[in-house]
C-alpha cells in the first residue's frame, strides 16, 4: 500500500526500448549547418566520408535517455502513497464509520480512509462488516466482501443528524455472538451527543481479543448553531462548538429563501469557550426575509439553522369605514397609512365592502396587524373576531376620528371620554399641543421626539389607575396620544388622533413610520399560516449532512406540529422544513438542550490503537513526470542549439528575440485577423463557446454546439452557422447571441478585464450559459460552482432563481418541465423575475424583453449534445432515462429560441384563455 505504485505497470516495458534509443541517438548525426558556398563545384567528395556520430556528447545522450525514461514512467501512471498499513489482524473486519453531521466537513477524507482500509482488507481477502452509525440498525448489513463494502461506502453520505448509536449495540452483540470480529476499525466523528463512549467501549468489549483501531480526524468539529433569538432590535445567533480549545473565528451568513446573502458577520470563540454569539442588527424588513443562517464554509448541517415562515415579512391589513374618503383617495386615511407602512410591511386592503366583510377579510388574511382608521363601534361579530385575532398575537391598531369620538366604543385600550377636545381653534384659548414624549416602558422608547408634530384635536382618555402604564406616547401637556393594552398574546393600540391630517400632522411626520414599524413588529403571530397542532406535516425541504438541500429519502416520516418543539432530529425526522409552501415549520439539527460534545474516548483500553485519517490522498506523479520530461526536452533543444553554434550567430539571437516579441505583441498585430473573425461571426447567426484550454472540454463544446445547431436547423426555421470558439480575454463577444461557457475549476481564473467584457456583453443583451458540468446545483458547493461563483463575484449579477414553471424558457419552442443534459440533477438558474412574494399567487407573466443575461446549469448540456461527424454521440447520459437525449436537445432548442426571440412566447400562457374566447 505504501510507496510507489503504477496504474499501468505494463507500460514500464517501454523502458526496454531505452538501449535501442541509446543506439539510435548515438548513430544519429547532429543537424548539419547550412553554409552558402559558391565554389560548390570545386568541392570533391572524398572516397570515404566519415559522418560524425562521435560528436554527440555523452551527456546529451544521457539527457535524452532520461527524457525517454521519464515519459515511459509517467505513462505508466505512478502514484506515491504516503500512508502506511492501517489494519493488521485476521478474520472478519468490522469497519465502523460515523456518518453524522459532524463528519460531513471531512467526509472525503473519511471515505478515502475507509476505501484505503477496505483495499487492504480486499488484498488480504478478508470479509468485512460495514457499520454506518447514522444509518441505524438497518445500516448494518451482512458480512460482505471488501469490494461490496467499498461500493456501499461510496454510496454513503453523511446525514444531517448525529448518529444514534444506542440501538446499534444490541445488533452488533448478536452478530458478534455468531461470528466474532477479527478486527475492529472505527472512524468516530468529532461531534457526539453523548453516546459514543458507551458504544465504542461496548464494541471494544465485543472484540476483546481482536486488534482495535480508532482513526480519528485531527480536524476540529464543525461549529454548530443551536439557536436564533430575536429581540426588538437585533437577531442573536448562538453558536456552539463541542470542545473548548484554541480561539476560533469565522463568519456567519444570513440567507433568504432564494439563497441570496442578506448579511454576513464575523464571530469569534475565545480560548476555552464553547459558546459564542453573533448579533445582527438588521432593519425589520430584511430581518423578515431571513430563511437560513449558516456558518460560512462550515459544510455541515450542524452549522445551519432554518427559520420557518413565522419569520417572514409581516403583512398589515387596513380597514377603514367606507364613506366619502373613497372619492378623495389622496387625503383618505388609508393613503397615509399605506405610505407609512410601505417601507416595512406588506399592506392588504381588503376591499371597500361593508365594514363587517372588510374586517373579516382582514382577519382571514392573517396579517401581523390590522389598522382600523376611524371606525366607530365595532359590531359584536367584528369585536369577537378582533379579540380572537389579538389573542393569537395580532396587533389591532385603531385610530380615532369623528366617528370614534361620537361612539361609546369599548374595544379600546382605555376608557374614552365621549367627544373630542379641540386645541388651538378659533374659540379655544389653548394652542395646538406638541408631541411630548414616549413612554420609557413602551415600544417607542428611544425614538427621537420631533419638535414639529402638533395635535389640534384628539380624543381623551378617562383618567384611571392604569392609564399611565398603558400610555406609550403623550402630548406635552401629559394627555395620552397613543395608548395600548395587552390582549392575550397580542395588543390593542389606539392612536388618539386620526390617521389623516385633519386632527394632527403626525401622519405626515417621519416618526409616524417608526411608531407604526415598532407597533407592527409586536405582532408575533403574523404571516405564519395557521397550522393545526395535530396536523401531520410532510417533509418540504430537508437538509443533507453538508447542510445542503436534500431530496426526501425513504423512511422519512412527517412530524406533528405540536411535537416540533420537542422532537429530536433523527433518521426518520431529519432536519429541514416540514409542511407545505403555504405554511411550514423548521426542524433544526441542534437545539440548545441537546448535547454536542467531543466523543469521550478516554475510557477505552490501552490496546486500542489510534491513528489518523488518510488526509493526504495518493499523489499522482504522472503529470510531474511529463512536466519534467518537457522541461528537459527544452533544455535539450537549447543544448543542441548551443552545440551547433546557434548562439554565436547574432542573426539567430535576433530571430529568437523577434519571435519572443512577436508572442508579446501578437494581440496588437492581430487586428486584421480580428476583423476577419468578426466578419465571419456575423455571416450567420451562430452559437459560441468559451475555450477552456482543456482539449476534452473544448472538443465537447464544439461538437455539442455543432450538433445542436444541426438539430435546430432540422427542427426549426433557424439555421445557425457552425459554432465558434471565443476567448473572452480578447475576442469580440457582442456578435454572438449566446455563449456557452463550460466552467472547470482546473482552468485558470479569467481576468477581471475579461469578466468586465462578459458583463458588458450581458448588459448589451447577450446571454451566457454557464455549465458547471458536474451535476451540482448552482446553490450547492462543488469545485466548479465555487469557481463559477468566484467568477461571477467580479461582475454585477442579477438575482437568480431556478426556472419557475411558468417561465418563457419552458415554452419557448417545446413545452419543457426540466432542462436536462448529460445529467439531470441540476436545475437551470435564470435571472429572477419581478416576483410576487406571496407564493400562493400565480406569478405574473415575465416582462417582455427580459431575456436573462445568464443561465446557469450543472447538467453538462454540451456533453449530451456532442456527437461526432457520423452522428454517434460522444458521451453516455448519466441516468440514461429514455428520451433523455431528446429532452437535452429540446432544452438546447428552448434556450436558443429564448435567447433569440426574447419572451414573445410568454403569450403562450394566454393560449387557453384565447382558445376559450374563440369558442374552441
Amino acid at each position, binding site marked *: 500500500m505504501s510507496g510507489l505504485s503504477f496504474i499501468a505497470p505494463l507500460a514500464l516495458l517501454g523502458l526496454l526500448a531505452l538501449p535501442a534509443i541509446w543506439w539510435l541517438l548515438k548513430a544519429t*548525426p*547532429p*543537424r*548539419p*549547418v*547550412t*553554409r*552558402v*558556398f*559558391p*565554389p*560548390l*563545384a*570545386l*568541392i*570533391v*567528395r*572524398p572516397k570515404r*566520408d*566519415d*559522418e*560524425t556520430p562521435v*560528436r554527440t556528447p555523452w551527456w546529451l545522450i544521457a539527457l535524452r535517455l532520461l527524457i525517454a525514461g521519464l515519459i515511459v514512467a509517467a505513462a505508466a501512471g505512478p502514484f506515491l502513497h504516503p500512508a502506511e498499513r492501517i489494519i493488521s489482524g485476521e478474520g472478519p473486519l468490522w469497519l465502523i464509520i460515523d456518518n453524522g453531521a459532524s463528519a460531513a466537513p471531512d467526509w472525503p477524507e473519511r471515505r478515502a480512509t475507509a476505501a484505503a482500509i477496505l483495499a487492504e482488507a480486499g488484498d488480504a481477502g478478508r470479509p468485512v462488516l460495514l457499520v454506518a452509525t447514522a444509518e441505524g440498525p438497518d445500516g448494518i448489513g451482512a458480512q460482505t466482501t471488501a469490494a461490496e463494502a467499498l461500493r456501499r461506502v461510496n454510496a454513503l453520505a453523511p446525514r444531517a443528524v448525529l448518529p444514534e448509536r444506542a440501538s446499534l449495540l444490541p445488533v452488533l452483540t448478536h452478530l458478534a455472538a455468531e461470528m466474532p470480529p477479527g478486527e475492529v476499525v472505527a472512524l468516530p466523528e468529532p461531534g457526539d451527543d453523548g453516546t459514543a463512549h458507551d458504544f465504542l467501549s461496548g464494541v471494544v468489549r465485543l472484540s476483546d481479543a481482536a486488534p482495535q483501531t480508532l482513526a480519528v480526524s485531527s480536524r476540529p468539529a464543525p461549529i454548530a448553531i443551536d439557536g436564533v433569538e430575536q429581540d426588538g432590535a437585533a437577531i442573536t445567533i448562538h453558536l456552539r462548538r463541542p470542545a473548548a480549545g484554541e480561539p476560533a473565528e469565522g463568519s456567519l451568513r444570513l440567507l433568504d429563501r432564494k439563497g441570496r446573502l442578506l448579511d454576513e458577520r464575523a464571530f469569534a470563540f475565545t480560548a476555552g469557550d464553547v459558546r459564542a454569539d453573533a448579533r445582527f442588527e438588521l432593519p425589520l424588513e430584511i430581518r423578515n426575509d431571513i430563511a437560513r443562517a449558516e456558518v460560512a464554509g462550515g459544510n455541515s448541517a450542524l452549522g445551519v439553522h432554518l427559520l420557518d415562515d413565522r419569520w417572514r415579512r409581516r403583512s398589515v391589513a387596513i380597514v377603514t369605514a367606507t364613506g366619502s374618503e373613497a372619492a378623495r383617495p389622496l387625503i383618505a386615511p388609508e393613503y397615509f397609512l399605506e405610505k407609512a407602512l410601505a417601507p416595512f410591511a406588506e399592506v392588504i386592503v381588503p376591499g371597500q365592502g361593508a365594514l363587517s366583510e372588510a374586517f373579516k377579510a382582514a382577519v382571514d388574511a392573517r396579517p401581523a396587524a390590522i389598522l382600523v382608521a376611524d371606525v366607530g363601534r365595532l359590531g359584536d361579530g367584528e369585536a369577537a373576531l378582533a379579540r380572537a385575532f389579538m389573542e393569537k398575537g395580532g396587533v389591532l391598531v385603531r385610530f380615532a376620528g369623528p366617528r370614534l369620538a361620537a361612539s361609546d366604543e369599548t374595544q379600546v385600550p382605555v376608557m374614552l371620554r365621549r367627544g373630542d377636545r379641540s386645541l388651538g381653534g378659533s374659540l379655544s384659548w389653548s394652542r395646538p399641543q406638541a408631541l411630548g414624549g414616549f413612554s420609557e416602558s413602551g415600544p417607542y422608547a428611544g425614538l427621537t421626539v420631533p419638535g414639529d408634530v402638533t395635535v389640534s384635536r384628539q380624543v381623551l382618555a378617562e383618567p384611571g389607575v392604569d392609564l399611565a402604564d398603558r400610555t406609550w406616547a403623550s402630548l406635552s401637556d401629559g394627555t395620552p396620544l397613543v395608548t395600548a393594552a395587552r390582549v392575550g398574546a397580542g395588543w390593542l393600540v389606539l392612536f388618539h388622533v386620526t390617521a389623516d391630517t385633519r386632527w394632527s400632522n403626525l401622519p405626515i411626520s417621519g416618526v409616524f413610520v417608526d411608531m407604526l414599524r415598532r407597533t407592527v413588529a409586536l405582532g408575533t403571530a403574523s404571516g405564519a399560516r395557521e397550522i393545526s397542532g395535530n396536523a401531520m406535516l410532510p417533509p418540504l425541504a430537508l437538509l443533507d449532512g453538508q447542510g445542503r438541500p436534500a431530496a426526501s429519502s425513504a423512511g422519512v416520516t412527517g412530524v406533528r406540529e405540536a411535537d416540533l418543539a420537542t422532537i429530536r432530529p433523527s433518521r426518520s425526522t431529519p432536519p429541514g422544513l416540514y409542511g407545505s409552501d403555504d405554511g411550514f415549520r423548521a426542524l433544526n439539527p441542534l437545539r440548545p438542550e441537546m448535547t454536542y460534545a467531543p466523543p469521550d474516548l478516554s475510557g477505552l483500553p490501552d490496546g486500542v490503537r489510534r491513528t489518523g485519517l488518510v488526509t493526504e490522498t495518493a499523489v499522482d506523479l504522472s503529470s510531474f513526470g511529463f512536466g519534467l520530461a518537457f522541461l528537459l526536452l527544452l533544455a535539450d533543444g537549447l543544448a543542441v542549439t548551443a552545440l551547433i553554434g546557434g548562439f554565436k550567430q547574432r542573426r539567430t539571437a535576433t530571430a529568437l528575440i523577434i519571435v519572443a516579441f512577436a508572442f508579446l505583441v501578437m494581440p496588437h498585430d492581430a487586428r486584421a485577423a480580428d476583423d476577419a473573425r468578426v466578419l465571419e461571426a456575423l455571416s450567420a447567426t451562430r452559437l459560441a463557446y468559451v475555450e477552456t484550454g482543456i482539449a476534452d472540454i473544448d472538443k465537447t463544446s464544439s461538437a455539442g454546439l455543432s450538433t445542436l445547431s444541426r438539430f435546430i436547423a432540422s427542427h426549426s426555421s433557424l439555421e445557425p452557422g457552425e459554432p465558434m470558439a471565443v476567448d473572452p480575454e480578447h475576442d469580440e463577444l457582442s456578435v454572438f447571441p449566446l455563449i456557452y461557457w463550460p466552467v472547470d475549476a482546473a482552468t485558470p481564473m479569467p481576468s477581471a478585464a475579461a469578466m468586465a467584457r462578459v458583463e458588458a456583453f450581458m448588459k448589451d443583451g447577450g446571454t451566457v450559459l454557464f455549465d458547471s458540468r458536474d451535476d451540482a446545483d448552482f446553490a450547492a458547493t462543488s469545485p466548479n460552482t465555487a469557481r463559477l461563483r468566484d467568477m461571477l463575484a467580479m461582475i454585477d449579477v442579477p438575482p437568480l432563481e431556478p426556472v419557475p414553471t411558468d417561465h418563457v424558457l419552458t415554452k419557448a419552442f417545446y413545452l419543457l418541465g426540466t432542462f436536462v443534459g448529460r445529467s439531470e440533477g441540476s436545475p437551470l438558474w435564470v435571472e429572477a423575475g419581478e416576483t410576487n412574494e406571496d407564493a400562493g399567487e400565480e406569478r405574473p407573466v415575465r416582462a417582455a424583453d427580459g431575456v436573462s443575461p445568464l443561465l446557469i446549469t450543472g447538467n453538462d448540456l454540451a456533453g449530451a449534445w456532442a456527437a461526432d461527424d457520423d452522428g454517434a454521440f460522444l458521451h453516455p447520459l448519466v441516468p440514461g432515462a429514455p428520451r433523455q437525449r431528446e429532452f437535452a436537445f429540446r432544452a438546447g432548442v428552448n434556450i436558443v429560441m429564448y435567447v433569440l426571440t426574447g419572451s414573445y412566447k410568454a403569450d403562450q400562457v394566454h393560449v387557453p384563455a384565447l382558445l376559450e374566447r374563440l369558442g374552441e
Partner: protein
Amino acid sequence: MTGHEALTPEGVATARGLAAALPDLLVEARRVAGSVAAGWHGRRRAGPGEDFWQFRPFLSGESMRGIDWRRSARDETLFVRERERENAHTVWLWIDLTPSMDFRSDLALASKRDLALTLALALAELLSRAGERVGLVGDAEPTARRDGAEVIAMKLARLGPVGASRTPVAMRRRDDVMLISDFLGPQAERKTLFADLATLESRVHLVEIADPAEESFPFAGRVDFVDPENGARLTAGRAEAWRNDYLASRSEHRARLISACRPGWSHTLARADRPATETLITLCGQLSAPEGGGA
C-alpha cells in the same frame, strides 16, 4: 540575365540591390582611387596615333612625310603635325554580377560583388581622370568624360549584370579589357569569351575575386553546402576532412584559368579580406606596363 531580357522579380531585386549599393561603392571607389592616383600619370604625349595632338616646328633630318603642308603654308616655318600617342586607347570593364558573386563569409571585409564594383569604379575614376576612355562590356560606346566613374555606375545600374557570353560589340582591336569575376561560372562560356578577346588582340586583365572562405575552406563538422547559382546542395559529414581535396581542386582550377591566358594577359587575385587599394595598385601597374605585343 541581362537588363534587356524580360523582367523577372529576381532580376528586378538584383538590379535594385545593385542600384542601392552603387552610390556607396562609388564613394568608396573615389577614396580608393584617390590614394592611388598620385603616382600614376596619364600618357599625354606625342606618339603614333590617329588624333591630332600638336604642331611643332620641323626639325631638319625628319621625314618630310610628317610636315603638315596646310599649316606650314600660313607662314614661313615648316610645321610637323604630331598625333597623340595612342597607347591607352580604351579600357573595357566587365564585371561578373552573378549570384555567386553576392557572397561574403565572416572572414571577408566585403562581399565579392562589392569588391568587384569598387575595383571597377575606382579604375573608371582613375582612367577617366587620366583622360582614358572607359567602357562597359555590352555597352555601345566607351566614355571619355572626366566623370567616367559616375557614367559607368549609371550604366551599370541601367544595364544590370552583363553576361559573360555577351559579345563586346564596340570593342576595337588592342583595347584593354578588365575581366572582374570569380571565374566560377561555366567553363564553356569563359572559353568562348577568351577566344573572342584573343581574336580582337585585346590585352585582357583577369581579376579573380576570391572570398577568404573559398581560399581556406574553414569548415568543420557536419556541413550542408549550398550553391547560390543553382541551389545545389552537398552535405559533408566531416567537412574538415574535405579541406585538402578542395584546396587541391581549387588550385588546379586557378592553374587552368592562368593557363588559358594568352601572352600579354595578366591574372590578379583580389581577396575580399584585403583592402581594395592593394589590388588597384597592382592593376594600375599592369595597365601602365609596356605592352608585350601591342603598340
